[in-house]
């Protein structure tokens, strides 16, 4: 009984804190965000921080990540430090439009944004929603506070994040790279709210890199809504690399119109607890979605990829490949739901999840789920959990390749299929290198930072 009360108390703590600080949250926030808070509070209290009894969170226990005393940042802190100067992405030849998000807040002095093609807007959500609310007509139409308590919690506390608008037929050749920095004196609770609108015929590539500046505990809860217009395309690469003392819950919603293409790729190397919610709605004929993911985790890391692909219109195609390598006592989960609605005929939907367990103690849970309400569709799913193929290992060794190197070759081979889906070449080379380092047990880091040296 006391345990149950405690869990309820934990949720109430986050709700109660809102009541204490709601004035400062509302202050300066755009109307569209403030309008959500009332319902969000009710929805959050009703659902609470999910326990493992909640079906959608069955394999991930969020409670411990919410237990520490975090500091909240409800007002923009103007930093004296020039992030452009202290941070340089050290990926050679990766020429991008670089911008920073610090503790969920879009950094005000990003330098290179003036080089963006005409009409493309990248900036602070808070600012854009205040200045040009017309561009956010669809805000909060995908991320429903009623269905997921983490979305409700996000709407409750959201103040800022990034906003990206790519106008009709615009082609952003250079990828846009967002560095998601966590930097604070204390353990910190971070809320980030993002909004992307890619109009008809426009093309954009987005690279999201995580970067933690110190070893404090962080809990970050982000929600991103993405609208991909007719015949538009999006490539979305997330390099998840926060240290192992951090927890992050990322919910991404993507709405696609006809003839559009959206590719997402999550590369998870570090992070204590990571939950990626990814929901696609294919809402126009001939839309194509490709969802890729790979995670290399060890010690007590936990990664949970939770995907939902809704085929709402006929003649759409979706494809999912998720691969995980789990070492030590790490745990992972993959839940992939494909929902083909009535009349979404000629749907092609595929899903595969392959997992490599390197120890007896690593644990992987995989749950494919197909809901098919149309009758002329092609759908398939497959999941494997296994060890390194000993026959293949022996074959390599019998050619003079030492065991450690042979294992490395096998693990690299395992994830090769996902890595080759990275279409930005210098980024692919970099991910290749990071993965290789990760597998060798070296720290895979992009920059001098407080990686999980201790934790």
């Amino acid at each position, binding site marked *: 009984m006391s345990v149950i009360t405690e869990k309820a108390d934990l949720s109430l703590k986050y709700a109660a804190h809102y009541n204490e600080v709601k004035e400062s949250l509302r202050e300066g926030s755009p109307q569209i965000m403030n309008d959500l808070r009332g319902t969000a509070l009710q929805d959050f209290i009703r659902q609470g921080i999910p326990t493992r009894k909640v079906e959608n969170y069955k394999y991930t226990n969020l409670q411990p990540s919410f237990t520490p005393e975090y500091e909240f940042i409800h007002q923009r802190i103007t930093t004296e430090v020039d992030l452009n100067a202290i941070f340089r992405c050290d990926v050679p030849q990766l020429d991008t439009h670089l911008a920073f998000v610090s503790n969920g807040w879009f950094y005000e002095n990003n330098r290179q944004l003036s080089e963006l093609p005409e009409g493309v807007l990248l900036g602070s959500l808070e600012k854009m929603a205040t200045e040009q609310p017309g561009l956010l007509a669809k805000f909060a139409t995908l991320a429903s506070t009623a269905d997921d308590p983490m979305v409700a919690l996000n709407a409750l506390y959201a103040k800022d994040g990034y906003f990206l608008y790519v106008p009709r037929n615009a082609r952003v050749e250079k990828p846009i790279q967002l560095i998601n920095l966590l930097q604070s004196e204390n353990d910190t609770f971070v809320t980030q709210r993002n909004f992307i609108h890619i109009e008809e015929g426009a093309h954009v590539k987005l690279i999201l890199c995580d970067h933690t500046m110190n070893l404090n505990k962080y809990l970050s809860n982000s929600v991103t809504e993405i609208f991909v217009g007719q015949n538009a395309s999006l490539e979305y690469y997330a390099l998840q690399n926060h240290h192992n003392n951090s927890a992050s819950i990322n919910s991404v919603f993507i709405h696609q119109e006809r003839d559009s293409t959206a590719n997402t790729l999550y590369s998870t190397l570090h992070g204590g607890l990571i939950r990626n919610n990814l929901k696609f709605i294919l809402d126009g004929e001939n839309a194509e979605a490709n969802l890729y993911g790979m995670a290399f985790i060890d010690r007590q890391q936990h990664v949970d990829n939770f995907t939902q692909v809704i085929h709402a219109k006929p003649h759409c195609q979706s494809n999912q490949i998720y691969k995980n390598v789990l070492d030590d006592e790490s745990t992972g989960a993959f839940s992939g739901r494909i929902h083909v609605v009535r009349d979404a005929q000629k749907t092609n939907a595929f899903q595969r999840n392959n997992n490599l367990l390197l120890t007896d103690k690593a644990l992987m849970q995989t749950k494919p789920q197909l809901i098919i309400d149309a009758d002329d569709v092609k759908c398939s799913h497959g999941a494997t959990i296994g060890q390194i193929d000993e026959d293949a290992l022996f074959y390599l060794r*019998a*050619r*003079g390749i030492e065991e450690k190197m042979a294992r490395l070759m096998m693990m690299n081979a395992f994830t090769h299929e996902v890595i080759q889906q990275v279409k930005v070449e210098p980024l692919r080379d970099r991910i290749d290198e990071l993965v290789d380092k990760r597998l060798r047990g070296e720290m895979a880091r992009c920059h001098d930072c407080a990686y999980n040296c201790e934790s």
Partner: protein
Amino acid sequence: MLSIKDLYVSIDGNEILKGINLEVKPGEIHAIMGPNGSGKSTLANVLAGKEEFEVTQGEVTYMGEDLLEMAPEDRATSGLFLSFQYPVEIPGVPMVNFLKTAVNQHRIARGEKELTAGEFLKLMREKKEMIDMDTQLTNRSVNEGFSGGEKKKNEIFQMALLEPKLAILDETDSGLDIDALKTVAHGVNALKTPNNATIIITHYQRLLDYIIPDHVHVLYKGRMVKSGGRELALELEEKGYDWVKQENALQ
């Protein structure tokens, strides 16, 4: 070069090899023949270092060293090569990477400089011509999607690249049509020198029409029951394995 003395091997408690003796000298070609299930492949795998086999008795000396104490990769880099009966497909490991790594591991073991990418590609081209290897195959993953014949040819191609001192060909002829068999045999003959030795493990006499053995041994129920010259293979071809089985039953 290789000396096997009174070798007993078990797997999961079943005794497969029961006292094998074999002496192989540089320049020699030995053929080990025998019916299915006699232990031929077990012998090949034990020599290459496959771990699931348990050596319960006996010793194997290779180039003056205790072979059984060596890791598979060390056996390989000191010149022992197994052409697999069933080459393994390894999706995601590109052939070129695999071959280059293997060649360079051999060079490192010999104290030689590693080959650069350019040097390696040149070497690969030479050996491809020698074996008549399809250029496209090296653009794939290791053995992935190769036909049975292509896999066997790929084994001989690797042998050509690694230039072993002692090559063990485990059923390299099985599943090959006559043209592929000739190509494989041609490759083996072309790689022959007075300093290296070959052990051919086969069920059929066929391959021995193209690769002439100096010694022929018959393995049956884990024992070497007959040894002789090339004529033994021909006699086996004529009389069949029943001849060996019957003779053995009488003893």
